[in-house]
């Protein structure tokens, strides 16, 4: 049913937990569907310095969360925004078709966390600083 890589990340997930005073938080999913994911990030110099996840869900939900955090760690925010569901699934050696949508939410959670960070830390309008 699942690839070895999925089972590896399910059995031994990386970056589980919640960052205290995070720079950005992204929560996706809904308990009615059986999957909820919360990603917290710490941002330094425009890069993801630290990232943690908490997930309620099936093995696919936990494995996609784990690998997404691994893929995002150390990346610039722009690079992290380019991590997609498709890339996450590929990195795991594929996911069963029925798990591609509901259980593969981590990339979205990551994007939301980055957007949350950006909303809280608005960039000064580029190149227009006076004096």
């Amino acid at each position, binding site marked *: 049913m699942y690839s070895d890589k999925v*089972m590896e990340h*399910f*059995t031994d*997930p990386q970056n*589980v937990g919640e960052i205290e005073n995070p720079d950005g938080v992204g*929560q996706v999913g809904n*308990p*009615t*569907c*059986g*999957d*909820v*994911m*919360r990603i917290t990030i710490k941002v330094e110099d425009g890069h993801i310095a630290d990232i943690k996840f*908490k*997930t*309620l*869900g*099936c*093995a696919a*939900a*936990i494995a996609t969360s784990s690998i997404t955090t691994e893929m995002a760690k150390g990346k610039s925010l722009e690079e992290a925004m380019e991590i997609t569901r498709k890339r996450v699934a590929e990195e795991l050696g594929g996911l069963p078709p*029925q798990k591609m949508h*509901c*259980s593969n939410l981590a990339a979205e959670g990551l994007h939301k966390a980055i957007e949350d960070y950006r909303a809280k830390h608005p960039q000064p309008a580029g190149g227009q600083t006076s004096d």
Partner: protein
Amino acid sequence: MRTVYMDHSATTPVRPEVVEAMLPYFTEQFGNASSVHHLGQRARAAVDEARDIVAAHLNARPEEIVFTSGGTESDNHAIRGVAAAGRGRHVITSAVEHHAVLNTCKALEKEGFEVTVLPVDENGLVDPQELRGALRPGTVLVSIMMANNEVGTIQPIRELAEVTAESGAVFHTDAVQAAGKMPVDVEELGVDLLSLSAHKFYGPKGVGVLYIRAGTRIRPMQVGGHHEHGRRAGTENVPGIVGMARALELACAEMDEEAQRLKRLREHLQKGLTGRLEDVQLNGHPEQRLPHLLNLTFAYVEGESMLLSLDAVGVCVSTGSACTSGTLEPSHVLTAMGVRPELAHGSLRFSLGRMNTEDDVEYVLEKFPPIVRRLREMSPTTREASA
């Protein structure tokens, strides 16, 4: 690695005594029961003897026993056969039936039948008064299971069959989960049709029974030769039929003692888990329930994660129903009982059987609570978070 199999409601191993009874009918006694020569006649004799045994254990007459390929075929035959022969266009079933019944009724609906799906209460019970209200002149069939495969709740079949009989409709019950666990007496129950499947009571897969009370208006569904008195065409699965009869005989002989033993094991498991973990809820009727079955909801965790983590330590269970595992929808049985979807997703079915021991229960009590705690630590929806 140690294997602890607690998924007997999905299937059971074939008992050695059953295999032994079946073996000659694969090789030396391979005859077609329809053949006139001596090999055919020996096969015929074996099928007849099996029919007598099955009939005796159901308190039926041998000519009322039709051998099928299993529970799903029996359910399809019962529902479609009565619908095809009946004088009306309305059937009644319940919201917690096995998909073999529910989806057959849905298929009839597409063909122009009207289907009433009766609700159940929080314990999974159908109310006979509710059934009385749903019966009407055009009702040809009522199909309500004897015991539920996901939560084990035992329906008041006798009362439901009585109410149905007053209206003149045919009453079918899927007794696939009940057989071998509790007495199944067609006279006591007052049913017209009843489905069994051998592999749920330590018989082989691919063989089952449809009991058809004499005089019931029903059409054959599989047409061909004159097998089974023209009610189910196809060369008889002689080894399977012989094995099923032997398995039923053994299950019935040991039933009282085994049911008591399983109930004790189950209670130990239930108390052990509810004592070691918080936010655990029983699904199904607290008493009126199959003795071997325990369905629990563990809040803030998801079923498949628990199942796979248990599998990693050798424990085989299922999430509600093995058939459900391929889909993302929460169990239709639990939702019909009013279990909220987020809790239905966190349910697990333990179904005990012959090979389980006190030691197995202890093993699960040792291995499972840390799994739930670990998954809860990983979950963003803990009790604190939702408070």
